[in-house]
């Protein structure tokens, strides 16, 4: 967590508020150490907001877009990892047999989930960011690419709509 915040601060040296991520990472650190999920969660949200605030004046380029989204998902990855670590440490405390195969499997599957979600989320966000940039920020691109992008973006919008409807219509069947 400290490393990611330090990295964020280092890449934000152009701003007078470059130290904000470093300061705001204290809150989730406290939450992590005292095992208060609410403090951890709100601390991470504050860290993300502080990072965005520090970089609010940077110019729009593809590199900056990737950097902003990259850091966003880095913080999210740290957040998820911290929550998973707290859960696993809770399991270790309650269950003497933490070497149990089921617990080991669970730890492994957590890492897979973490990696999969963050990477997939990153690509989806980059994709969606490009849509936003194209539609609102008057990014100049060629006519042929525009047509291809239109088709891809329309499909993506419908796909995301489908996913959202699917998520919201979920019912408790247990």
């Amino acid at each position, binding site marked *: 967590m400290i490393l990611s915040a330090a990295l964020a601060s280092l890449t934000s040296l152009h701003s007078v508020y470059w130290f904000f991520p470093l300061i705001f990472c204290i809150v989730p650190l406290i939450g992590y150490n005292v095992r208060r999920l609410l403090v951890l969660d709100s601390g991470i949200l504050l860290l993300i907001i502080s990072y965005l605030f520090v970089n609010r004046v940077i110019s729009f380029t593809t590199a900056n877009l990737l950097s902003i989204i990259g850091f966003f998902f880095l913080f*999210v990855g740290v957040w998820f990892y911290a*929550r998973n670590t707290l*859960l696993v440490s809770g399991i270790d405390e309650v269950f003497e*047999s933490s070497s149990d195969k089921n617990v080991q499997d669970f730890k492994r599957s957590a890492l897979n989930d*973490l990696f999969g*979600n963050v990477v997939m989320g990153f690509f989806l966000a980059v994709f969606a960011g490009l849509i936003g940039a194209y539609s609102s920020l008057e990014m100049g691109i060629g006519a042929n690419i525009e047509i291809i992008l239109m088709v891809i973006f329309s499909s993506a919008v419908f796909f995301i709509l489908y996913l959202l409807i699917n998520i919201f219509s979920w019912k408790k069947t247990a």
Partner: protein
Amino acid sequence: MKMDKLLVYLTALTILTVLLGNLFRSWVFFMGAISSLALFVIVGRSLPPDDIRVDVRRETSRGIRDVYLGDEIELNIHLENKGDELRFLEVHDILPSLVEVVDGSNHQIVRLEKGEKKDLYYKISCPVSGKIEVGPTKIRYRDTFNFFSEELDEEENISIRILPRVQEMKKIDINPSYTKHWLGDIKSKSIGVGNEFFSLREYHIGDEIRDINWKATARYQKPFTNEYEAEKSGDVILVVDGYKKGIVGTMRNNTLESSVDAAASLSSAILSARNQVGVIVAGEYLNWVYPGTGKNQYQSILSNLAKFEKGGTWGLEGVKWLLEDFFPRRSMIIFISPLTVPEFSDTIVDFCRREYDVMVISPDPVKIEKNIVGDLGSTAEKLHRAERKNIIEKLWTYGTVVVDWDPNQPLEPALEEVLRYRQRKRRA
């Protein structure tokens, strides 16, 4: 909604970034909003399974519901996943606080593939007698990042009776002073049905051929018949004192537990001598078993002792009317009481004055306390000892036989010693 917490966080982040983006007129915040939406779509899609259904069934091994104190009982939880794959399923069988898990665990984590069946086992033991409720079984699914949890069906409780510990007492002859007509093991010093030779008499018509004493017949040239000493039985009523104020010790080791164990052991020994045994347990409620014999009687005594609840409603004086009005007169009454409530000794004396044959078995509360806390402090211990000695001497004076029993030791030697003294006294 699949992931309530995550939804709240990401919605808050999205709204905040959109507001800040408008405020600062910065594209960076809008990228934050887009990223949080993308994250929500991905995580919400992949994490909790759509269908979470697990069938739970709990049972004891071989369907046993009665166990003796200190015995182990195996519990099996059968799980069947009828929904999607569950990576983290927490199974927690709720147990009463006194119950000890001796093998396995009542709290386990399992992973269940789709359609998979799994059996979980663990063994428990209970250090106190009585009825225990096992369950309900709490089942909780959690996702890997602890954003989502779902409580599943709960299996109903099952009741298990922990019967009191029974000590083997082979040498004990608790012979009631007043016997009844039915056959037993007590020698009555009178002629009747029995196995022990008593005397000879001339043959009368109707005597059994097998009772003819052939040696005496040959010697005196006329038929003689053996007479036997009648073996009879009596009524013994065990009165267990469960008055709450008088109980000394911890939840696991106390005078009441010792009294219940003693009552169970005595009823087994007395019943095996073909006497009739009844039980009155006085605590929160007044439970009793009318005198009877046989295995069924023993089982009903044990179950009565197992469901017994200590309380402050019924002291020993409260059982007076019950004994007088409902139980046979001239029964032998064995009070099992720590004698910590002084008024109870008056009740016992009162019974001695009447036509009852009274015995007191008193688990020593000072010994129990000493076993728990170590040194009591010499003055306090001396005071308690003196007080107890006074009560016991008073009871002896009124003709009560008192067994001052150290519950950390077996009951048989202490009882045997006192019974020997009682027999000598009777002969004298």
